């Protein structure tokens, strides 16, 4: 399994890792077969995501993909994140090996779920 240098960099220095106190929204993504789990926390101002935190558990690259996903989510309009594509997440780490594609799914799922949670709380 060969990972991109961008992925490795995120693994080494994950951005936005950890919990958030009193978040405006939280969401989880999960991949049963692997036990992979990602949880995202969002802070939202004027329909825009101003701060992101995440926690992950899973095989190697999940943490790196989550870090890249958190950067990608920061500053984006919430509407965007409701439709966030897993491919965009994968691109953010310059691709994933075949057996680890699910890391992007788990992270994209978690971010979309957090965005949905924000909408739900508002309604």
């Amino acid at each position, binding site marked *: 399994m060969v*990972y991109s240098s961008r992925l490795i960099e995120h693994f080494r220095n994950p951005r936005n890792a*950890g919990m958030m106190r009193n978040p405006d929204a939280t969401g*989880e993504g999960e991949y049963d077969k692997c036990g992979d789990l*990602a949880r995202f926390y969002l802070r939202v101002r004027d329909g825009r995501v101003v701060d992101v935190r995440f*926690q992950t*558990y899973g095989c190697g690259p*999940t943490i790196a993909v989550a870090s890249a996903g958190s950067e990608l989510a920061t500053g984006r309009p919430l509407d965007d994140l409701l439709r966030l594509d897993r491919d965009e997440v994968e691109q953010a780490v310059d691709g994933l090996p075949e057996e680890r594609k699910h890391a992007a799914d788990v992270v994209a799922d978690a971010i979309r779920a957090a965005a949905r949670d924000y909408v739900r709380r508002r309604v």
Partner: protein
Amino acid sequence: MTRRVYLDHNASTPVHPEVIEAMLPYFGERFGNPSSIHGFGREAREGLETARERIANFLGVAKDEIVFTSGGTESDNLGVRGVAIEHHAVLRTCETLGGQGFAVTYVPVDEYGTVDPDDVRRAIRPDTILITIMHANSEVGTIEPVEEIGRVAREHGVPFHVDAVQTFGKIPIDVNASGINLLSFSSHKIYGPKGVAGLYIRKGTRMAAIQHGGEHERRRRAGTENVAGIAGFGKAVEIRERDMAAEAIRVTALRDRLSEGIGARVPDVRVNGHPTRRLPGTASLCFRHVESESIVLGLDLKGIGVSAGSACTSGNVEPSYVLVAMGVPLDWAMGAVRCSLGRGTLAEDIDYVIDSVEPLVRKLRAVSPVGTA
């Protein structure tokens, strides 16, 4: 360059410089086909037979009881399937076999991964044709009581196959005391080249070949022999014979230094396998609530090579079946890491690994939603 520490000797080992030296002539002048009757062939055959003799002596068996194969996997296939096919053939001749399937009975292990010889005894059926066991499991390193199991096999007249790929050249093996009929052993786990291994076949053990073609290896394994590899294997065994005892002591001490060091600095760690009846260099550790591969990857970035206990291949996680069989809970088993030490491992390597593991596991746990929520 960053420091590099290899703690994956159970996966493979670097080839010993003396072993490379021993191989080179067989790539060069002594390149003949050992089946050829002219001088070029005889020189190659000499290399083959010298290695065979050396290995036979090491095991205390006869030369013609050693068959060379292409690897531990082939030795296991030849040992187990060779007996099954032969038996099958005999049965078919007797026209007593309806189908062609073989039933396999698995015997459990205890919390240390040890098999109870009495369980083996109870599992034997009148139609049992083979008992097979790993001398030591490659992941947790627990050494099985092969002498006792061999006694059970002998009592019941059942052939006994032992996969000694992880123990050969690391701890003593007595095929006679253990009543072993078939023993798989390999080169690339003991500083020999990859692509060569052996199977000991006790005289009189009835078995079929599984690879067909020429009349090599006394018709028990067709195909031109990997002469250079086999010559290297012979040299590797010679070196192990010399170094084995001292290395076992040295490496056991380092292994304990490693698990104790990590245990003292990282919370929620357990050491798997038998506390004493264990391969000298093997330390299987479980980090609770951390995923194996993320540790492997994190250590890899520090130049450290260890192996993940749970393998996540083709999108399905597989926690080590050994750990599961030993009753290790899933939230521990998912965080299993195997460190296997070898002749190149130094005390400072161990300390570097301990220093690297602590912050890594702390970091991984800090970002983990599991166990903390």
